[in-house]
């Protein structure tokens, strides 16, 4: 007699209870396909009606975004899907999906309809925040820290320049200098407070000093740019910080504003002009690439490393700088630069943008692995010894990720640290 094959009985209910366990919810489709009983175009329109959210309604489901969405690669997400979820009952202002986008811009890069998540996400998030809807607690904490302490880490303002005493070179503070400088260096919150960030900041100070750059920092007067908080929906906080920062920048005379972080570059270069601040702003990689001729003779020590470089979303896609970081790395004697599969325009996001920096625990519940882990694995697969970065969010993210993915042999170093190594030799 042939063995009797019996199919699993499907549960024909949206509210499913199996063996006494309530398994209702979006994930019960392993038991059955939930029937769509209503389409809700009004939920698409709800998003499109928010100023900034208009293009959400333009999606025609071509799905180009999905393959390049870094979140979809570790989960089930992407602009096209959000549109469909909205059409079938998801209110984006109340959905966890609202908080997964890192604003990496890879979807917009390929979208034929220019559905612009970089505008949509902050606008909808702001509405959610204003309406008192769910906001991940960690993100809330980062907002609160920024509002109270001037930085998302919640560190005291008066310790903002504490790092300079161990930098090994003099780091002038513009207020004390009491004279105009060529370069006002905006250090940023993570380089000021995070131990790995401080490593990069100190390296930067030594490099600028070695190059004889006339620079100064704001010291205790520096506060967070809050661009990522803006993208995470707290526009009011961003504006509050912006008003303060512009006032502070305008207090002193300087020719160019240099930033350690791509997010700050984006804020000061692309967003601050809307608030009346239009001054030259440059990322340190672009800045140092100008000094390659002076820099090369200083790079005396060989760094015999195979290095792969991770393009920060806000330096690359958002601001078009792909070459300067590579030129700097190639200038270091002994370095062999190898590329990851996804690089430059298609670089894979570390997960830190758009507020992702402060939502790791939350996003972990909605993805199979962290974006930083996916990227760390990609970096390791090139055979590189070093994953070089140029964004202060990334050092700590990738340092954790190489560990959690068993790739401890890959060093995560800021380009600044690598240049510093070559100038000073291994310390």
């Amino acid at each position: 007699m042939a063995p009797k094959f019996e199919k699993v009985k499907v549960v024909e209910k949206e509210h499913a209870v199996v063996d006494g366990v309530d398994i209702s919810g979006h994930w019960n489709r392993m038991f059955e396909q939930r029937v769509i009983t209503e389409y809700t175009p009004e939920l698409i329109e709800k998003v499109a009606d928010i100023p900034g959210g208009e293009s959400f309604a333009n999606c025609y489901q071509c799905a180009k975004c999905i393959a390049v969405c870094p979140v979809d690669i570790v989960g089930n997400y992407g602009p096209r899907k959000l549109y469909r979820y909205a059409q079938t009952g998801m209110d984006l202002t109340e959905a966890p999906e609202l908080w997964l986008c890192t604003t990496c811009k890879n979807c917009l890069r390929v979208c034929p309809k220019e559905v612009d998540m970089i505008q949509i996400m902050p606008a909808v998030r702001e509405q959610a925040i204003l309406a008192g809807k769910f906001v991940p607690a960690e993100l809330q904490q980062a907002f609160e820290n920024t509002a109270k302490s001037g930085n998302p880490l919640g560190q005291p303002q008066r310790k903002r320049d504490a790092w300079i005493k161990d930098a090994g070179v003099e780091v002038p503070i513009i207020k004390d200098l009491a004279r105009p400088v060529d370069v006002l260096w905006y250090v940023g919150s993570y380089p000021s407070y995070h131990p790995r960030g401080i490593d990069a900041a100190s390296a930067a100070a030594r490099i600028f000093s070695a190059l004889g750059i006339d620079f100064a920092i704001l010291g205790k007067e520096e506060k967070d740019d809050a661009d990522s908080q803006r993208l995470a929906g707290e526009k009011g906080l961003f504006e509050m910080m912006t008003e303060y920062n512009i006032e502070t920048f305008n207090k002193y005379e300087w020719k160019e504003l240099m930033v350690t972080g791509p997010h700050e570059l984006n804020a000061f270069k692309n967003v601050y002009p809307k608030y009346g601040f239009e001054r030259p702003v440059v990322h340190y990689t672009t800045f140092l690439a100008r000094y390659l001729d002076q820099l090369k003779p200083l790079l005396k020590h060989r760094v015999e490393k195979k290095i792969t470089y991770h393009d920060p979303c806000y330096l690359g896609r958002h601001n078009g700088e792909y070459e300067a970081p590579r030129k700097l790395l190639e200038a270091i004697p002994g370095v062999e630069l190898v590329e990851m599969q996804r690089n430059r325009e298609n670089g894979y996001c570390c997960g830190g943008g758009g507020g992702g920096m402060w939502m790791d625990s939350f996003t972990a519940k909605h993805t199979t692995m962290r974006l930083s882990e996916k990227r760390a694995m990609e970096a390791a697969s090139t055979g590189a010894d070093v994953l070089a970065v140029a964004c202060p969010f990334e050092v700590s993210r990738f340092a954790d990720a190489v560990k959690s993915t068993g790739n401890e042999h890959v060093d995560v170093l800021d380009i600044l640290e690598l240049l510093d190594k070559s100038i000073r030799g291994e310390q």
Partner: protein
Amino acid sequence: MSNDILVITEHMDGKFSDVSFEMVGKAKELASALGGRAVAVVVGGGVSSNVFASDSTIHIDDAALSQFNPEAYGKVIEALVKEKSPRLVMFGWTATGMDLAAWLSAKLGVPCAAYVKNIGADLTMSCQAYGGKMSADVSPEGDMAIAACLAGSFPVEAGQGSTAATSIASPVALDGLKIKFVEAIKPAGGDVDITAQAKLVSIGRGIGSKDNVELAEELAGKLGATVSSSRPVVDAGWLPRTRQVGKSGLKVKPKLYLMLGISGAPEHLEGMKSAELIIAINTDKKAPIFNVAHYGATADLFEVAEAMLELL
């Protein structure tokens, strides 16, 4: 009108609090200067009231008053004060006294001073103000005044005695009360008992965020101590209420009380000032805590804590 001084004593679980005796002692001193009597007032049943060195003790012994009820207590005290017309009514600036002193002041239109640390013979009161940053001398106008006194301001012993109390019935009807006592709430078990710890690392608002509590935990771990805190840390949800030291928290008397980022509000001092060794780290060199601590340093608590971790 008399020159008597009424002391509203307070008790819980059959025991009078120290501040009751302190006030009776002070009242005696003032009464003799004013030519009046120090009258201890005991409101509520279930307590032996012959324990004061007062000139007399009135015990309003009514079952309806066996548990503290601000409405009932207020009505009783109001009636008593009206009847006795004393020169001064003394309350403790405590969880119970705070419900009554200002209420009575507004009800009767009688001046009230709070945070009273000392009272002169002319009834000039020295008060702590602005979180201990200031001290104010005020004198009440009129024939009657109310003083709400900080615990620990006067010696306890001067008020202890055995004056026989006169029991009276409640001077007012106690039915139709809007407030009803439901039940006592005992401290939640499960957590460590900070009153039993020999060493406490106590953190205040200066710790900045919940994440930073870890640093204190780590330091406490190295010292074999337990982490306690001032009220704001508990209110912020960074530590459970079982760790709160102070007036509304627990009173502790450890061998070591290492304070990180606590400025020393009077409410906190009340809970820890008898610790054997008090060391305070605070960035504000004028923090009141430095007047109480044995050792102090004006420094960043994070830096000190991190440096200590390396040395331990």
